[in-house]
């Protein structure tokens, strides 16, 4: 079974939901403690939501320097799959593993509510199970989720196909910066999730694990978690084949 790790920082609070979502998606999900640098042989790593290290100084910045993150950075540099959700996205951005920064929400308030996002790319390890650009419904829960990068970087991200998710209205039309209803944190160009240059590290602000069962009101998030599990399984099989051949 494909083993996927969920990092637990002091202040993580979505780690259990994420472990469960990954198990529902068919993975063996294991918790990875922030002080332990060993990644326990996992084929993918998820940085979950929460308030790592109390979000002191800036959301995600202190977590970035934890022992586990040094291993995650090396794992990512080696092509390993890494997904950051909400606070996990903030950690990845602070670590420079994905581009941009997450600013205070435009309206200053913490936002906990459902949003809709569309996958701009359907061919990535994180979205391969998403069938189309139909809007996916899942919650956000953050105070600093306003995606920012300078204009030049934003244009480069678009040109390179590295905008992974965008906030959208109910019909799947992109929610630009001024659309406070569909893009409530005011993210530039409606960006809800991005990819790194190699396409193996992704971050998004909405919570797929909180939309992983019908009883939660939506199971759209499972498309993302299942994508990750399927991609991680292929990677494990690929490595096993290489080992078997040698």
């Amino acid at each position: 079974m494909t083993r996927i790790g969920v990092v637990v920082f002091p202040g993580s609070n979505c780690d259990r939901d994420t472990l469960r979502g990954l198990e529902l998606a068919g993975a063996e999900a294991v918790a990875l403690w922030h002080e332990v640098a060993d990644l326990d042989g996992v084929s993918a790593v998820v940085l979950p939501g929460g308030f790592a290290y109390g979000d002191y100084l800036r959301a995600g910045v202190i977590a970035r320097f934890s022992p586990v993150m040094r291993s995650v950075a090396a794992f990512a540099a080696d092509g390993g799959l890494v997904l950051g959700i909400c606070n996990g996205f903030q950690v990845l951005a602070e670590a420079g593993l994905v581009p941009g920064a997450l600013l205070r929400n435009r309206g200053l308030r913490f936002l906990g509510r459902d949003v809709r996002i569309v996958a701009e790319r359907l061919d990535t390890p994180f979205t391969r199970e998403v069938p189309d650009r139909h809007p996916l419904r899942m919650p956000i829960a953050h105070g600093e989720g306003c995606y920012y990068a300078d204009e030049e970087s934003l244009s480069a991200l678009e040109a390179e196909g590295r905008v992974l998710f965008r906030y959208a209205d109910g019909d799947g039309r992109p929610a630009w910066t001024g659309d406070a209803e569909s893009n409530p944190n005011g993210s530039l160009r409606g960006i809800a999730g991005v990819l790194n240059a190699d396409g193996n590290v992704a971050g998004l602000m909405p919570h797929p694990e909180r939309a992983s069962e019908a009883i939660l009101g939506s199971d759209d998030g499972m498309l993302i978690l299942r994508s990750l599990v399927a991609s991680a399984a292929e990677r494990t099989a690929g490595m096993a084949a290489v080992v078997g051949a040698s």
Partner: protein
Amino acid sequence: MSSGAAATNGGAFRFAVNVTPKPGILDPQGRAVEASLGHLDVHGVTDVRVGRRVELTVTAGSEAEARATVDRLASELLANPLIEAYAVELLGAVAQLEAAR
């Protein structure tokens, strides 16, 4: 190296790092403060930007060495250069600061 004895000798130095949002970066806190000024009947105040000030003591072989440490901390940890600017301010050698207290 302009602050006398402390410039060349080692010891403990007190610094402040002032971190502010870069020009052009949306600062909702600054905007909220600005919006409240009318309630205080204060007018003519614009461009409010809210940042953060971090004070720290560094013990090092020289003031220059201490400053280099603070610069590294500021750029790698205290500020995110993508969205924030910072200025390092030497408050003084700790011994002198305590003597003056």
